[in-house]
């Protein structure tokens, strides 16, 4: 009965609007305002030694695209994000598939096991990778002592190590995203395909995979965006040699005091990320989701 009363007041729309104000204030002050300030900075003039001068110039943007150093960083960032996303997807799919068909305690165990690492920040996990993979790290120590190698391997501060670190961080998120969608695929659909003569492989490619597309889209675009913007992992596992967009923006601003340059890079990163995810989800969405009529 109390529920009834509450329901009615929701419909009137009276108490809801004021409750949105604090969140709207925080969002506009702490999120929108800095972005706008930074956007303005990106058109300022960088004067070495003098911080920056107010101006309206496109110099900062032009420099990024004309200087091979910066362009190389962008390409590397895209490459790392691409491989990290693809690997995460391939590793996550079987786990999510299995998990989607579990119930009760086993499922709870999976969820806890997946959420737990998310509670540790990426800095902590990055430190873990250093302890594991650095020249004096556990892996090298073990391999040297067992005599499998004579010299320490270069396992860290490489592009691949950054990719693997990102994969390890993003894997739980991908599994959980895929799992939700895979769980919604009725188990009878796979049986029906088998019953109609499809092999296990064709059942996967003709039925399960197409139906999982919404989950794959959601998961991969989410993780692609996060990988593009990786900072702490790139910093710790990539070291000074493997610069990515986020780390070089930081360097630009804090070490070179080039605020306009850093701001321009930040907006280039933002724009590229937005454009790629927009195209990606739109092209694929048109191709699959709309024809699938999934509700």
């Amino acid at each position, binding site marked *: 009965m109390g529920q009834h009363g509450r329901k009615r007041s929701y419909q009137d729309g009276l108490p809801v609007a004021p409750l949105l104000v604090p969140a709207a204030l925080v969002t506009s002050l702490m999120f929108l305002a800095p972005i706008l300030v930074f956007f303005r900075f990106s058109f300022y003039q960088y004067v070495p030694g003098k911080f920056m001068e107010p101006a309206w110039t496109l110099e900062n943007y032009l420099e990024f695209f004309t200087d091979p150093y910066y362009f190389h960083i962008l390409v590397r960032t895209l490459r790392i994000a691409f491989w990290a996303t693809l690997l995460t997807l391939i590793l996550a799919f079987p786990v999510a598939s299995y998990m989607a068909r579990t119930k009760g305690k086993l499922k709870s165990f999976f969820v806890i096991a997946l959420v737990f690492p998310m509670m540790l920040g990426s800095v902590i996990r990055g430190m873990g990778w250093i302890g594991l993979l650095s020249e004096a790290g556990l892996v090298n120590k073990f391999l040297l002592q067992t005599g499998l190698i004579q010299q320490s391997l270069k396992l860290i501060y490489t592009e691949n190590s950054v990719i693997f670190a990102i994969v390890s961080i993003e894997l739980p998120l991908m599994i959980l995203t895929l799992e939700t969608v895979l769980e919604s695929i*009725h188990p*009878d*659909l796979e*049986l*029906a*395909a*088998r*019953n*109609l*003569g*499809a*092999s296990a492989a*064709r059942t996967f490619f*003709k*039925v399960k995979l*197409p*139906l999982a597309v919404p989950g794959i889209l959601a998961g991969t675009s989410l993780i692609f965006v996060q990988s593009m913007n990786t900072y702490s992992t790139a910093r710790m596992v990539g070291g000074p040699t493997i610069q990515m967009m986020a780390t070089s923006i930081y360097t630009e601003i804090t070490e070179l005091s080039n605020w306009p340059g850093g701001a321009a890079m930040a907006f280039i990163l933002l724009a590229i990320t937005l454009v790629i995810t927009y195209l990606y989800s739109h092209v694929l969405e048109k191709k*699959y989701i709309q*024809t*699938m*009529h*999934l*509700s």
Partner: protein
Amino acid sequence: MPTDVRLENVTKSYGPQTVLGNLNLDVREGELVALLGASGCGKTTALRIIAGFLTPEEGRVLIGGQDYTYKTPNQRNTSMVFQSYALFPHMSVRENVAFGLKMHKVEKSQIKPMVDEILSAVRLEELGERYPRQLSGGQQQRVALARALVMRPDVLLLDEPLSNLDAKLRHEMRVEIRLLQERYGLTTIFVTHDQEEALTMSDRIMVMNKGVICQSGTPKEVFERPRSRFVADFTAVRNFMRGDFLEDKFVTRSGTEIRAGDSSRAPGTSCLGIRPGKIALNPPDSDAYANVFRGTVKIATFLGDKVEVLAVLPSGEEFILEVPTMAWDESRYEKGKEIVFGWKSEDMLYLTEEDASK
């Protein structure tokens, strides 16, 4: 091509729980057999073993005399219609129906006429380009049927195909399924928990309980001569009198004496049954009505063309009667009033408490 199906001594358990204990089942070519039972009786498990979704621990699955026990589902030509219909949501009606043909590598030029033919057989020719979620429940059901029938299966397997439909559609689809089954001469196994469905649609009914078949026969045989209390209960017998033969009478636990001959009439009988519709109000004074009782009306419920009456004897034994509304005089038979009722000996059912074939 339609063919016969046999399950021989099939056993299946999930962990410690035995779902099928030594199940034997024999379906002849072109026959429609209903597996009738409550949920959890193993009927769906039996169907899934025939389709190859499950492998039995023991026993054999024979389709057309050949051993299919360990063949994968796609190596068998069985077509299943699922309770959930299991239509592929990302494919149009035509694509759903053509799926099996494509998987069997039927020539493209042949697929179209085959799909057209089956869609017109289920009266869906107009809806070929629609997607499943754009169809009503009854239409989805017919797509599921078309998708199964187009394969010209050895065996058609129907898993509670009508349970998601409303009552009116269910009646229509019963007839439609039966007509299609006869038209294509399909060997069909039909799983249901609805006795009316089983009685109206099938050539033979197998009543299942706890993983075994407790009685099988034509609908008429099963309905008229249920052997056990379980089968009787499942076929809408509602009056049960538990007791034992005492010389030439049957004495119920409440002490009511019933003229039922002596124990040689039906050895093993521990319960008598009578359908509510077979009990007559004010029976004629004749030898045919060997059992006539005087009781009081406990409650009478109006059901349209009939009235359901709960009557109680002085001994406490209760009976449910169905009286045609025309014969029911409310003022005369109101609650607490005395009524006289009885039944013909030939309508009385001699039942065992346990399932005989166990």
